[in-house]
């Protein structure tokens, strides 16, 4: 059922003014405490009561599919169950501190950050970690900036190219470009992995870095990773690890051990922090020792004042690139990630990856769509074949499940990029496979008309983009 906009429920205009700017009791007589030339004239917004708002947002929530609604197999966007207790720890009153407080009075916050830096370092095989980047893409940008600063520091500021496989996440390209680099796109080989010859050709003295996802977006492990690392390092480039698919490898392999110099972690993908409908996320970055002096400022370290009861302090890395966020990133998200890691420990983390890989393989074995590339790990990319992958996704909505990521990576025609994660049990995977297979047997017309059982039917994207209406103000009076 349709829920009116807040503005369709109420619009109240408040006139502002009457103030002369004197230090008198303006607020008492309803006038503004500011002179008129410093204030706006009026403000017109909805004015509703608490019960009305509770109903509005309750109703809106009912028109959203979340991880507690069912499986969410969005490839490379790992949507796993978000443990409820992590909300409780992030809501602790002592978590609510101002970033400008003294280090002395925020030892708890600093200790938690220190411990999380340490955990992440161990998990990724990295020597130093910054928690500042507020999302994965921000982490990529930090990696790019760190690489730039490193090369600059070494008198190699001429390096102006970043090499990225064609099948990589779009953010890789955009982050490299934001960092001022030219992007050299790398084709895949027949097996869906990095083409070593093409890489050889792409590498040069202008190479600043190669950005790699491993397992890649097809779920394939880049088996030649050692050779790739050697090749990149041989020309003086750095190797960047996109952490989007780290959930495949926990406890089995570490980017640091594969020769990566710098990496980001996606805490919502790997460490189960909620995605919140599009954030906040967190994209900590780990680096090898050589790059640590370039990390953003500040980081946290022990202050060495007492051995029995360690204290913590902030410090600026020697050649820091500065800041990429006004403060220290998405702190409340970091608290949840810390709690998740502390809950699972070695065994839980390792099992999460093992089970995620088992789940992907099992699900792939149950569906009728072809999966051209293997052996995949935590995700696989099926092909919708003669069907339109986007239509397949819309039709899957009618079966009560969230569809996979579609039409990407482009190496697979009509791609259905599928990642069930470890939290789906066999029964759920069977239901999910049944949904895939039901759609596989349907005709194009049915698919094109889908979805038909959802809150909204198929939404017209073209009209949305052709005549953008981005606010209730833009809707026009006929709609209000």
């Amino acid at each position, binding site marked *: 059922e349709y829920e009116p*906009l807040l503005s369709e429920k109420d619009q109240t205009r*408040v006139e*502002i003014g009457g103030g002369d*700017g004197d230090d008198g009791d303006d607020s008492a007589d309803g006038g503004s405490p500011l*002179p008129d*030339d410093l204030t*706006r004239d009026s*403000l017109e917004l*909805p*004015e509703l009561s608490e019960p009305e*708002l*509770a109903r509005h*947002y309750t109703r*809106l929530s*009912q028109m959203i599919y*979340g991880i507690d609604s069912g499986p969410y197999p*969005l490839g490379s966007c790992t949507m796993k*169950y*978000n443990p409820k207790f992590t909300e409780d*720890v992030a*809501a602790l009153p002592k978590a609510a*501190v101002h*970033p400008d407080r003294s280090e002395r*009075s925020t030892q708890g*916050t600093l200790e*938690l950050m220190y411990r999380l830096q340490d955990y992440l370092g161990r998990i990724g095989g990295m020597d130093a970690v910054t928690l500042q980047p507020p999302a994965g*893409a921000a982490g990529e*940008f930090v990696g790019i900036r760190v690489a730039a600063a490193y090369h600059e520091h070494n008198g190699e500021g001429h390096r102006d190219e970043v090499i990225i496989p064609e099948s990589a996440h*779009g953010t890789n390209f955009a982050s490299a*470009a934001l*960092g001022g680099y030219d992007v050299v796109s790398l084709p895949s080989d027949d097996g869906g992995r990095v083409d070593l010859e093409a890489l050889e050709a792409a590498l040069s003295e202008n190479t600043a870095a190669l950005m790699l996802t491993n397992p890649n977006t097809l779920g394939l*492990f880049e088996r030649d*990773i*050692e050779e790739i690392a050697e090749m990149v390092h041989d020309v003086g480039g750095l190797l960047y690890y996109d952490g989007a698919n780290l959930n495949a490898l926990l406890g089995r*392999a570490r980017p640091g*051990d594969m020769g990566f110099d710098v990496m980001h972690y996606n805490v*919502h993908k790997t460490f189960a922090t909620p995605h919140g409908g*599009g*954030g*906040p996320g967190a994209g900590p970055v780990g680096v090898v020792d050589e790059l640590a002096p370039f990390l953003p400022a500040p980081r946290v370290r022990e202050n060495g004042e007492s051995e029995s009861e360690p204290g913590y302090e902030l410090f600026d890395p020697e050649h820091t690139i500065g*800041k990429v*966020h*006004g*403060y220290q990133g998405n702190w*409340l998200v970091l608290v949840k990630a*810390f709690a998740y890691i502390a809950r699972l420990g*070695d065994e*839980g983390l390792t099992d999460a990856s093992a089970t995620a890989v*088992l789940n992907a393989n099992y699900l792939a074995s149950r569906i009728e769509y072809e999966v051209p590339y293997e052996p995949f790990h935590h995700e696989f990319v099926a092909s919708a074949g003669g069907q339109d992958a986007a239509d397949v996704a*819309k039709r899957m*909505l009618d079966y009560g499940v969230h569809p996979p990521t579609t039409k990407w990576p482009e190496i697979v025609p009509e791609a259905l990029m599928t990642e069930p994660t470890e939290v789906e049990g*066999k029964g759920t*995977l069977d239901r999910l496979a049944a949904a895939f297979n039901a759609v596989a047997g349907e005709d194009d017309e049915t698919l094109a008309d889908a979805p038909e059982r959802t*809150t909204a*039917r198929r*939404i*017209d994207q073209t009209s*949305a*983009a052709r005549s953008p209406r*981005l606010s209730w103000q833009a809707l026009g009076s006929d709609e209000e």
Partner: protein
Amino acid sequence: MHGTHTTGSPYAPHTEEDRSAMLEAVGAESVDDLFDIPAAVEFDGEFGIDVRSERETRRLVRTILGRNDELTELLGRGHYGYYVPSLVDHLADRSEFLTSYTQYQPEISQGFLQALFEYQSLLVELTGLEVANCSMYDAATALGEAATLAERVRDTSGHRVLVPDLLLEGRRSTLENYVAGTDLVVEEYPTDDANVDLAALEELVDEECVMVYAENPTVRGAIEEGLESVGDLASDHDALFVLGSDPIALSLLQRPADVGADVVVGDASVLGLPTSYGMGLGLFATTDDYLRQVPGRLVGASEDATDRRAFTLTLQTREQHIRRERATSNICTNQAWVALRTAMHAAYLGPNGMVDLAERGVTRAEDLAERLDDIVGVKAPVHDRHHLREFVARVDQPAPAIASDLEKRGFAVHVVGDHELQVCVAGVPDERIDPFVAAFREVIR
């Protein structure tokens, strides 16, 4: 047996029988067979991280965070601790909001899309500009994005970006990183009594400028009195006028559209988020002119197949997942859930509540400054301006020592100079003001 789970992920539902059946179905002996990792890079060590029960983990975090002192924070300078009504927590914590992904499938995401559309509309009203995106990370990154937008839409030979000398270090530094890959150069212009020094700015602005940035209120809490002139100076030289502000300030102060702002950035989480160690919500609004150069996500209204109104992410061809290295920004995951909370908080207050909150920010700051000014050895406010929620006080004694003494008495303030403290009333309960003044009196003796 979750109460005593000691091995494996506590969030994986599999029984041993499930695992066996699944392995059989995929034709593997063990899960190990499914991994295709060369032996040379296999990890055979341990992280050394203990498994803990849910209860133990909660206790661990509570213990660690317990080491934070309990202080009354009279802190601001970009991050504020306004009271967030309980409604916001309870509704935003509904798992449908909290655990959903970006709305790539709008047909099953209408509720979130509508909430974000309402958030955008809130910013449109507050700024008077036509377009607001549905979030950036924070004020600093939004400023960085504004600069790269300025470079795109002002692709003359110009490369100067002018910012106030008082600009917060976190914002300045972030901006520097955002423009590092461009030809832009960030330069400072001076301030005069915590407002833009208009005369000096006029000297500095030229045709090489692509952007002039100002904030209202300024970082020292002073309300800008020359914004229209700044806007005129910028537009006279074909530079973008980018204004930094926030939803509470915007409820009361001059409307950005009325002073010629081309872009408004800032931290919208002054509504919706409690103090959270700097976690924020990047506000980004601009005019229709730059619609197709806007960074980040936009929610638009459309129709579904039955011609009913429906919402969807739109103009995605600007974004990284489609346009890759030619995208308007690299942002993907943004701060959608915080935007939801901000919209909720604003709706809870309504326009009367928002204006009232802003006005009380003026009068309470004024009152507190007056009371501090009564103390011998203190001048407050230092700046002869109207203030919103915070102000600078000059103390005869060294400011760091005063701040440290105040902290021992349970109060946190900013040190902004050798003899300058900054004090903020936002979110400070009324009944903590008297004790603060009393403590101030004590430490100043």
